[in-house]
């Protein structure tokens, strides 16, 4: 457990640093690469926390995201001047976010501690039932798959639909001609 905690915190700090660099750097290409690195860190964290399915998916998705984003960024010139807005507004934003984080710190004490979810306890849980019935009732030895495609297959239909919506949407947005006839002149 301790070894896992140390590894986890190292990965978390790596991710946080990578994200901070990504957000503050001026060069968009390095920003994209930094977020990719953070995603790679997340995939490692998945592996560390016994989620190989997630690690695999996160890794390949990461690859596609970074390729697409780099493709978008690399040939386009950017002249954004990140002049700091107004110090007061920025301070207010940071203060609000800090308050949110403090509220989380205060209220999270009631959550189940890390490493001891309800699932591990004696209480009956949704996941406990899925695991108990997974092999005999669905025949799949990968419990994540049996949940995804059998117990909660309806969610997966929804998820497949989300992907379908997004591609139809992207194609719709990329049409060269949107309106026919007289466009609404405003």
């Amino acid at each position, binding site marked *: 457990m301790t070894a896992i905690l140390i590894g986890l915190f190292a990965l978390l700090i790596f991710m946080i640093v990578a994200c901070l660099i990504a957000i503050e750097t001026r060069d968009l290409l390095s920003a994209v690469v930094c977020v990719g690195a953070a995603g790679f860190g997340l995939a490692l964290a998945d592996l560390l926390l016994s989620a*190989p*399915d997630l*690690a*695999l*998916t996160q890794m*390949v*998705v990461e*690859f*596609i995201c970074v*390729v*697409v984003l*780099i*493709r*978008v960024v*690399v*040939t386009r010139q950017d002249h954004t001047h990140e002049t700091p807005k107004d110090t007061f507004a920025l301070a207010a934003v940071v203060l609000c976010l800090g308050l949110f984080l403090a509220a989380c710190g205060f209220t999270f004490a009631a959550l189940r501690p890390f490493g001891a979810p309800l699932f591990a306890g004696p209480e009956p849980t949704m996941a406990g039932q899925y695991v108990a019935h997974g*092999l005999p*009732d*669905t*025949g*799949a*030895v*990968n419990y*994540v*798959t*049996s949940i*995804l*495609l*059998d117990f909660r*297959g*309806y969610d*997966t*239909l929804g998820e*497949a*639909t989300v*992907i*379908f919506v*997004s*591609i*139809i949407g*992207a*194609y719709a947005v*990329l*049409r*060269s*001609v*949107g309106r*026919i006839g007289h466009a609404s002149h405003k």
Partner: protein
Amino acid sequence: MQATSESGGGLSPIVKTVARWMAGFILVFGLSVVLYGHLTPGGGFAGGVVLSAAFILVVLSHGRREVLQILSERAPTIYDGLAALAFLLLAVLGYAAGGFFLNFLPKGQPFQLWSGGIIPLCNLAIGVKVGACLFGVFAALAVFRHLHQRSA
């Protein structure tokens, strides 16, 4: 690499051949990730993304112009729609057999490829769907740029 594919020429013939071979291997790997999803880590989503990566590799190495000659704008959306329909059909077949999303096929022996009832079939449909979809998004953003409208 980016610049050449931008102008549409593609890379040298050696790179293209290697890329095609690589794409073949990636395709097989993706299919195995899809089909063994209920036995090992992976499944329709991860495998589908791998499948799309194979096609993306070919596009990146061959360049825009060559790809545009063989690929129609609508192809990815059609495969996407058909695979989504197949997945929905599995759910509706269950519906006919007694309940929406009922796993109506025999469950088989654990650890066999043909086990888990409809799960491998669902994985296959999702794999094709995700592969077509992601490739379609990439193609739309990188290859087509502006889609020509066609009134229906």
